[in-house]
């Protein structure tokens, strides 16, 4: 027996066995949604997408990225719908012609978490910029996403309001997702800005606890946008729009409100709210 005879037969047999054992699920109808790690990691999609699939027969494939990267993915035409949380960037995305129009969906809020020892003495505060100023002035470690995500953008806005340019060894940019950043914060007793949904679902809190919450400026609005089929003809506009319609109408809004972790509601639907 020569190799030419043996090896392809062997490989073919293995592959065939795999194909039989593992038929790659090829859904007839699916859309690709570029979204954020906070929505994915909190388990929201896992909870609501099956309901959408049941009522429409459309499978939603979620690529969870930071908001900045999700918008770039959509801009390149690699997603049909983008579902993120950075209102200004979303409006620019639509204004630049890459999105059809922006629809508010839901909100939650950010919290500042920190070590229970609270070296910056910010526990219980409800003024986020003042708390950040305290953290900076005491040089307590702060873990920043540093990845141009929606959370990172919100954090930079807070620093602006605090009139501080955060630099120094205490300010640590992880360049990672929310969960990785929380892992780092937990290990290094650092403060961090996190959306409440990810925080509640996060399982490795260690010595971290919520220090600052309840500031209006910690409000975190999510919006959903259909990628413009005029820019990218392959975009599945009808199915994408169906997803957006479902999210913003009572059925989807109810599903979002019904998603709870440990009995606690993580996202608050507000599709009808003017100006959201």
């Amino acid at each position: 027996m020569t190799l030419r005879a043996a090896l392809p037969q062997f490989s073919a047999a293995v592959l065939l066995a795999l194909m039989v054992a593992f038929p790659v699920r090829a859904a007839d109808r699916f859309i690709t949604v570029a979204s954020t790690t906070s929505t994915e990691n909190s388990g929201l999609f896992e909870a609501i997408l099956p309901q959408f699939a049941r009522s429409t027969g459309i499978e939603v494939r979620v690529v969870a990225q930071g908001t900045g990267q999700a918008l770039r993915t959509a801009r390149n035409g690699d997603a049909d719908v983008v579902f993120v949380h950075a209102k200004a960037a979303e409006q620019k995305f639509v204004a630049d012609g890459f999105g059809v129009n922006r629809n508010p969906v839901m909100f939650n809020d950010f919290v500042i978490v920190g070590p229970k020892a609270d070296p910056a003495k910010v526990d219980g505060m409800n003024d986020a910029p003042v708390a950040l100023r305290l953290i900076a002035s005491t040089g307590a470690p702060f873990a920043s996403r540093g990845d141009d995500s929606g959370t990172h953008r919100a954090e930079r806005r807070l620093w602006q309001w605090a009139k501080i340019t955060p630099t120094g060894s205490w300010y640590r940019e992880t360049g990672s997702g929310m969960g990785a950043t929380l892992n780092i914060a937990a290990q290094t007793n650092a403060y961090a800005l996190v959306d409440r949904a990810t925080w509640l679902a996060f399982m490795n809190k260690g010595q971290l606890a919520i220090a600052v919450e309840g500031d209006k400026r910690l409000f975190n609005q999510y919006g959903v946008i259909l990628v413009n089929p005029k820019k990218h003809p392959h975009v599945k506009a009808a199915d994408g729009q169906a997803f957006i319609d479902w999210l913003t109408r009572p059925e989807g809004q109810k599903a979002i409100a019904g998603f709870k972790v440990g009995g606690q509601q993580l996202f608050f639907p507000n599709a009808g709210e003017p100006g959201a």
Partner: protein
Amino acid sequence: MDGAFAQAFKLILGLDAEFLGIVGLSLWVTLSAVAISAAIGLPLGALLAVCRFPGRGALIVSVNALMGLPPVVAGLLVYLALSRAGPAGFLGILFTPAAMIVAQTILVLPIVIALTRQVAEDMWAEYGDHLASLGQTGRAAISTLLYDGRLALAVTLLAGFGRAAAEVGAVMIVGGNIAGYTRTMTTAIALETSKGDLALALGLGIVLLALTLSINMIVFGATRLWHHQLR
């Protein structure tokens, strides 16, 4: 650690459909990449061992260096190529298992070519005169080298499998870690780590390790069977 082993057992014994899907996809993507790399890399490596041409040394060094290509870079290159904005965007396979197979093939192929080249070159030094005497050249000579080198080449393919099975950077970028569609063992581990569920992440890691161990055992068994002919 106890939690991790408990999680690993729960995953294996639970035979949860989602978990099996993840394991199946991991195997499918990785073995496809290895099979494609073998189909291309084995003959190419042997050809590189046998042929002499200008620039051969530089080519060998380049291929050897590519064995160290960071998975994230491979992933990024494939991402840029397969994105709708990229040259192969018309295929529309970004964020699909096919894209993951492409990325992993780019990681595995240099290993297969480089190690095959080394194995075949050593054998060619020994076999060259005999095959020339028999008038065996070209494809036939290469298939003799590959067949007689099958023991060492099986290890080469295992090295390729190991690289593909262990990497997370490339499949994460080009697959998108879509639940139920492009989520593999390694991207699931990364995801669970980021969710802070370290026990589940480690449990998945243990299952992945067990899987890799089983594949190595199968290949080891096969090479034992051949071994008596190969000394």
